């Protein structure tokens, strides 16, 4: 995970000398889209609770193995804490996104339930049910991230969004939205973490499941609002 997160940050940071991420901006006037079918399965099953530069990760293979166990245990503990209050992050985010899209004048529907095989955009879309476009939202990671030992855990969401025309499959908009990125990213819409949700350590994360969920929901709402704004 640390390698993936640092590699993703590095890829976007040093992109000037390679291939930078280039979003596809939306032009509502020419797109002629009035209805959107939101693609199912936006979020992964479990939130993360990840310490990026953890102590263990700095001590070779043995340290990395121990670290992996600590990270997985923390992730499960956070997942279980959220389950005690029946927090369904995906339903909350999808409801927020649908609400915001409706505010921006779109008729919103949802595609049938289907689990993604990978956390990637679909290559083949299900029946649109009469909608003129698909909105494909793929959250790669959501939950909490600490930059390293001794640093607080803050909400984090890493999402990519794409609007596809049903009739010909044309890409009408594509963007990456990252809430609380680790490191500086280029060409990507970045949202700073909400300072109201900071947890000193694992114990504080698990102390109050309601607050734990509220931090995640707040970050997901910001991403959903931003995705909808990109389509206004």
């Amino acid at each position, binding site marked *: 995970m640390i390698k993936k997160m640092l590699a993703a940050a590095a890829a976007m940071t040093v992109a000037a000398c390679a291939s930078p991420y280039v979003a*596809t901006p939306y032009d509502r006037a020419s797109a002629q889209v009035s209805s959107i079918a939101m693609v199912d399965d936006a979020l992964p099953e479990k939130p993360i609770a990840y310490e990026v530069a953890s102590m263990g990760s700095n001590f070779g293979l043995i340290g990395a193995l121990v670290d992996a166990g600590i990270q997985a245990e923390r992730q499960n503990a956070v997942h279980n804490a959220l389950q005690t209050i029946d927090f369904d992050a995906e339903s909350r985010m999808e409801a927020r996104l649908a609400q915001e899209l409706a505010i921006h004048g779109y008729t919103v529907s949802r595609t049938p339930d289907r689990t993604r095989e990978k956390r990637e955009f679909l290559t083949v879309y299900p029946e649109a049910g009469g909608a003129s476009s698909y909105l494909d939202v793929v959250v790669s990671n959501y939950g909490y991230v*600490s930059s390293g*030992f001794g640093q607080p855990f803050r909400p984090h969401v890493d999402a990519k969004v794409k609007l596809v025309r049903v009739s010909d499959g044309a890409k009408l908009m594509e963007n990456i939205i990252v809430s609380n990125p680790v490191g500086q990213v280029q*060409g*990507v819409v970045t949202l700073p973490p909400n300072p109201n949700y900071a947890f000193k350590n694992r114990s504080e994360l698990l102390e109050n499941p309601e607050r734990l969920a509220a931090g995640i929901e707040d970050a997901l709402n910001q991403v959903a609002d931003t995705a909808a704004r990109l389509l206004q």
Partner: protein
Amino acid sequence: MAGIVSLTPPKEQVVHVVDSAMTPMSNCLVRAGTQAPYVIYALPDDMDDKTIIVGGVLEASRIFAPLIEILDASGQVLKTFQPEDYYYRGPVYSVQFRPQFGQRYLLVTADTTLVGQSYDSIQVGVNTSYVSTGLYTSAINTGVESRSSRTFSYEGVVRVMLNDTDIKEGT
């Protein structure tokens, strides 16, 4: 209006970056009784596969408060980006668009309604240091956080990033 800056790169490249310092010495645009520094960019003749990000760079304590408009060949305003069109894209508070036929210039001036407002943020990251034991060197990653408060200003840096997704085409 003077000092038009070309956005046409010397040769086709994946990303062409142009930075312009906005200082008290910059040209001043007077509209509706309000003065603000400005810079004009000439969009490239070949607009195919081009995507442009333009805005104010997040500096240590300030951000140039951008007001961005697209002009035609005669200098008439074709589009004014609205506040909701601006996002923080990494280190640039910016808009993003694909130039269209008939669009010729990009006018960046200061949004006087934004000047003076602050943007508070928290940045997290990882620092890497290297420790040598004589026999081998190992990398130590350390998590870091910083808080910053920046103020939108009449001064600062305007950055334009011209991305070309097909550099195999002619210029």
